[in-house]
Structures are given as structure tokens and as C-alpha cells.
């Protein structure tokens, strides 16, 4: 198992490298002009030349590539073309994105799987058909439009300044935040978000442990819904303890819009994959045996069918992951959420290459990292992977 993970990790690094190299040359070659053209509109030729030398843009492409490569290897993010350290930018923009992406993905995944499971079990019911159609419509809907709709509905048509042309070119900010509240504290929204996330992660881990012990002792199952609810409750009380509850709630009042949009957009895909997978598993012999054993229908569905159906869903997830990240990027820029995606827009617009490349690096790492996590989860769920040490033979 570890051998497999190490192997996957090495291959991932190589893929990341190929991906970044491709993007580096693709952007530089395809996009006309450079940062100086975008930024120094009013300057004359000499002034521009001087700026180019200063920023190292006069060097040939290969030189710049190796320079950047050297920086990546040293894990030195460098500075943006505006002179701001990129690490600072990332500290500002990554937490908001993670908040939406991680919590959104987890919730969308759970909702999607649950709906997929339920609808495929009673395939012919009118409710199942409606849910399937709903999932399809949401999944194929135009993301900015969905954002607009969600915002419109939750704000009852009131506040609507978020969606707008050239939304991506606005500087990242939290426009909806309560100014007075934030003036009193020295924390930035991103720092608050980090604290919030830590709270959620710790409470989730702790509750998982409790759940495990409880289930071992009593040999019964904790309902998933209750478990999620408990995690939420625990996390919120955690915010209270840190004393950031006001700030956290303030952030949540605007964060739920991209989050809900993202969940609506993403759950359909999970649901559809789960349905297909359940359909395969439903007719398998072990499910039939489970029925023959006289187990209650819910046990057959949840313990026997769903758990096996989950495995192909996980491997399909690997293919869908980049689309999910894409979805986040689009939604962020639609609502002006100051995350990684919005930042990427701005950088692309200004042709701020160091920021673009490093953002892509982060996106690549997130997607490959998520992949490794999926591998680990799959191994946890499937003893065949766990005990096999991945000795695949190609006969």
C-alpha cells in the first residue's frame, strides 16, 4: 500500500511538472504582449524597455523558464510583478477558496451519494425521476446564471451587485462584510477563515474517533445526518471558544452563496455517477444474498449495495475533480469571492506571470493531493486494495 502511494506520488510530481511546463510556454506563446504592455499603457518605448529589464522580461523564454523552475524547486514563490510577495497573496486568497471548495465538495459529495443511492433504489418512483431531472438541470446549467439565481433567491432580489461584467477584474475583496465589526479586530478575513477551518477539521476528527469508539462498544450505527449535524454544532461552538464567532458568522453570511451555488452545481454529477454504479451493484449476487438473509431493506441498501457502489464512484471522481475546480473558479469570479480563482483572473488579465504560474502550481497540487486522498479513502473502503499491495500483473 505504502509502496503504491509512493509510486503514485512520484508519478504525480512528474505530471505536475509536465503540466506546469506546458502552461508556462502555452501562456507565454499564445497570449500577445506581456505584463508591461498591460500595465504601463502610458509609457513610451524607452520607459517600457527599462521596465522589462527590471522585471527580467527581456530575457529569452528559455532563460525565464529555467529561472522559474529554479524558484519552484527551491519552493520560493518569489514576488508578483507588482512587487508583492506571492506567499502573502496566497495567504490572502487560498483560505476563502478552500472554505468553499472543501466544505462544498464534501457536502455535495454526501448529498449526491445519498440522493443517488435513494433514487436508484426506487428507480421507478416519481420522486426519483424528479430528483434525477433536477440534478441534470442543475448540473448542466450555466454557472454564472446559477449564481445569479441563488443570489437573487436568497437575497429576495435585494442585494445584487455581485454578478457583473468584468467581475474577474475587480480587486479581490469581501464587499459584503460588516465594516464596523472588522475595524475592531486586527484579524483579516483570511485568518479568520483559517481558524474556522481548523475548528471544523479538529471537531470532525474528534467526532470520528468518538463515533468509532461508540460504534465498537455498542455495535450500532450512528446516523450520518446526525453525525454531520454534530460536527457542525461542535465546530460552531469551537468558533465561539476562539472568540471569532461574530466574524465567522459575518463571513458565512456571504460565503454561503458561492457554497450553495457550488453544491447545487456539483451534486448532480455525483448523483448521476452513483446512480450508474448502484445500478450495476444492485443486481449482484451478494446483494441478492443479503436480501435472502432477511436483512432489512435499508441495511441491504446502505451496507451492501451502497458501500460497494462507492468504489467506482471514487475512481470516477478522479476524472471529475478538475471540472469541480473549474466550477469553483467560475463561481468565485461570478460572485466576486476573493479566492484563488478571482485572483487568477486578475493575474491573467495583467499577464502577471509569476502569480499565474504559482496559482496553477497550487491548483495542480490541490488536484493531485485530492487524488492521493481519494486513493487512501478507496484503500480504506476496499480490502482488496488494502491487502493487495498493488501487485497488478499485466497478463
Amino acid at each position, binding site marked *: 500500500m505504502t509502496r503504491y502511494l509512493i509510486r503514485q506520488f512520484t508519478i504525480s510530481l512528474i505530471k505536475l511538472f509536465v503540466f506546469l511546463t506546458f502552461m508556462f510556454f502555452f501562456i507565454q506563446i499564445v497570449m500577445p504582449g506581456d505584463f508591461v504592455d498591460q500595465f504601463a499603457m502610458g509609457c513610451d518605448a524607452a520607459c517600457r524597455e527599462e521596465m522589462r529589464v527590471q522585471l527580467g522580461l527581456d530575457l529569452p523564454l528559455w532563460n525565464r523558464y529555467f529561472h522559474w523552475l529554479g524558484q519552484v524547486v527551491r519552493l520560493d514563490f518569489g514576488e508578483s510583478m507588482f512587487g508583492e510577495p506571492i506567499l502573502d497573496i496566497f495567504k490572502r486568497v487560498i483560505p476563502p477558496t478552500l472554505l468553499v471548495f472543501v466544505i462544498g465538495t464534501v457536502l455535495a459529495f454526501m448529498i449526491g451519494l445519498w440522493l443517488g443511492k435513494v433514487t436508484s433504489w426506487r428507480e421507478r418512483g416519481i420522486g426519483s425521476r424528479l430528483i434525477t431531472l433536477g440534478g441534470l438541470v442543475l448540473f448542466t446549467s450555466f454557472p454564472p446564471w446559477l449564481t445569479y439565481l441563488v443570489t437573487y433567491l436568497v437575497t429576495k432580489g435585494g442585494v445584487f451587485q455581485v454578478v457583473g461584467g468584468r467581475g474577474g477584474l475587480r480587486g479581490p475583496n469581501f464587499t459584503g462584510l460588516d465594516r464596523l465589526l472588522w475595524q475592531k479586530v486586527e484579524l483579516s478575513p483570511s485568518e479568520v477563515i483559517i481558524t474556522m477551518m481548523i475548528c471544523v477539521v479538529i471537531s470532525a476528527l474528534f467526532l470520528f474517533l468518538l463515533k468509532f469508539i461508540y460504534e465498537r462498544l455498542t455495535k450500532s450505527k450512528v446516523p450520518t445526518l446526525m453525525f454531520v449535524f454534530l460536527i457542525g454544532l461542535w465546530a460552531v461552538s469551537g468558533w465561539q471558544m476562539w472568540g471569532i464567532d461574530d466574524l465567522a458568522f459575518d463571513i458565512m453570511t456571504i460565503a454561503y452563496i458561492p457554497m450553495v451555488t457550488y453544491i447545487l452545481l456539483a451534486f448532480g454529477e455525483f448523483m448521476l455517477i452513483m446512480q450508474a454504479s448502484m445500478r450495476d451493484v444492485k443486481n449482484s*449476487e451478494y446483494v*441478492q*444474498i443479503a436480501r*435472502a*438473509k432477511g*436483512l432489512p431493506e435499508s*441495511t441491504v441498501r446502505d451496507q*451492501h449495495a451502497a458501500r460497494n457502489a462507492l468504489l467506482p464512484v471514487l475512481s470516477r471522481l478522479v476524472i471529475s475533480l478538475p471540472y469541480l475546480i473549474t466550477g469553483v473558479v467560475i463561481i468565485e469570479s461570478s460572485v466576486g469571492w476573493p479566492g484563488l480563482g478571482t485572483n487568477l483572473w486578475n493575474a491573467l488579465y495583467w499577464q502577471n506571470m509569476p502569480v499565474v504560474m504559482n496559482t496553477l502550481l497550487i491548483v495542480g497540487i490541490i488536484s493531485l493531493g485530492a487524488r492521493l486522498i481519494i486513493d487512501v479513502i478507496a484503500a480504506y473502503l*476496499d480490502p*482488496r486494495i488494502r491487502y493487495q499491495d498493488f501487485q497488478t500483473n499485466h497478463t
Partner: protein
Amino acid sequence: MTVSENVLDVKNLVMHYRTRKGPVYAVDNVTFHVGKGEAIGLVGESGCGKTSIALSLLKLLPTNADILNGEIRIMGDDIVPLPEKKMNKRRWRDISMVFQSAMNSLNPVFTVEDQILEAMLEHVPHLSEEEMNEKIDSLFDLVGLDPSLKTQYPHQYSGGMRQRAVIAMALSCDPDLIIADEPTTALDVIVQDSILKQIRDIQKELNMAMIYISHDIAVIAEVSERVGVMYAGKLVEMSSTENIFHNPIHPYTMALMSCFPSIVGEKTELVTLPGEPPDLLAPPPGCRFHPRCPYVTEICKEQDPDYKEHTQGHYAACWHPGGEK
């Protein structure tokens, strides 16, 4: 209804599948019974409805299948009208099943022990944890598996071991009747042989009723006391194993007996049965075997023969039993 001597009484069972092209009567008017401690065999070709009978007995039919008519009495109680909740109580307690494919009948993500325990927790929850563990150990011994293997996952077992585990699972709640649906078909001869022996011994030892379903008449000959022969959804002949093999009266049974190769005895010419089994979507009128039957007469083409007792305990559905005119 008086309490019957039989573990299972099936009367006039009719079951069909609804398909796009029309109904398929996979089980058509089948009547038979299984006495206490008796092992009967059901033999027939693929698609003749043997497995459909087995699934009907457990009421495990897919959503597009219905039992249209007939009674299935287990220990005297008719289970056909039973609601799902009550049926669930009877499954595995009264009647359990060993499925065809050893590879797929165990859930790959749970240990074998968990899968056996699950059924016991559902049906015999009054047992304590130690009692259950002891029971599982003794079951493993019974089917010839090392009890220390019980905490392993199915993929760590070989094909033969898996089928043994499935048999142990089927025995876990001491059912009165066990249905074995081609349990050895996917296995190699040597493994098949030892599992057959095990099944036979267990059935005798626990004095349990068994329905053994197979397409292989050689296997059926070894395990069963009475044999039913199925053709195109109908039970065409049923009698003691001796009678079926040495004095068959239905032409299909006769043909089946003489087209089966054997490695012992003289090498005899194998008889070829002309044609193919009928398409159940549009079965031939009259006796379903008539297009392939050498003794066919006009009446065979028009009327379905009754399934009736010809000699003591020897039932058959044929207008010309034994080829007589």
C-alpha cells in the same frame, strides 16, 4: 390447513417476467413437495426456470417478475401472500440458499465472519456473543474450513473456500430447507467432488431438507434422492433418482439421459436431440417439447399434457409416457 409432513409444498406455481416483448412464463404450473430431511434435485437446461423457482421460494424476485398463481407452503404456511416484513423474518431462518457463483456471492468489503454474523444478529439475536462465535467456529469446521480464517476477507479465499464459506453462511440459522443453486458449477472437478461430499454429509447429519439445482445430471445423481426434470418453465417429470435414471418416462428425460457422456462403462453412441429449447416468449402450443419429440402425435401439438402420477411416486407430463403410442 393441517400441519403437513412436508417442509415445502409447492402447488400450481406460476411466475412470469414482464419484458418489453411480452410476458415470459419462466415457471408455469409447477407442483412438487419436499419432505423432511429429503434431498431433491432439479435438473434442466439454462433458461428452463430452475433458478426462477428458487428465487420464487424465497420471494426474491426482481421488480419485473410476479408470482401470478399458486401456493408455496413452508412448514404448512403459505408464504405467497406474506408481506415483505414478515417474509424477511422467514428468510434464512426457514429457508436459505447457496447461490451459483462462488466468486460473487460474498460481499468483498466485509469479512466472512461479519457476513455470517449479520444474518445471525437478525434472526437469532437471543444468542450471546460467545455463542455466536462458537456457532461460527463449528460451522467452519463442518464445511471443512479452518476457523482461524473467518476474520479474512473473501478475496483472500480461493474459489472452493468461498463456496464453503457460503455454505456455512447458509447453515448459520439452522434452516429447515436449503436451496443450492448450482453451487459447484464454477469449480474444478476435484474441488467440486469434495464439496459435493461435504454437502451430502451435512445434509444427512443435520437431517435437513435440500433442493439441489443443477444442469449436470451426474452431480444430481450423486446428491439427490428424488429428481425433478424441468423443460421450458415446466416440471415434466419427477420421481426417485433410480426411476429417473433407469426408467424415465418422459421423452425429454430419456433423451437427456442418453446424451450425457460418462467416463465409466462402455463408450456408447450419444443421442442427438434435434432443435433448440423453445423461446419462452413464444412457446410452442400444446406440449412444449413436441417440436423436438420423436413420439410426437397430433394431440401433443394441440393440448398440454397434465402433470400426473403414472406409477407410485412417479409424476410426468406426457401424452405418450415411455414412448408408447
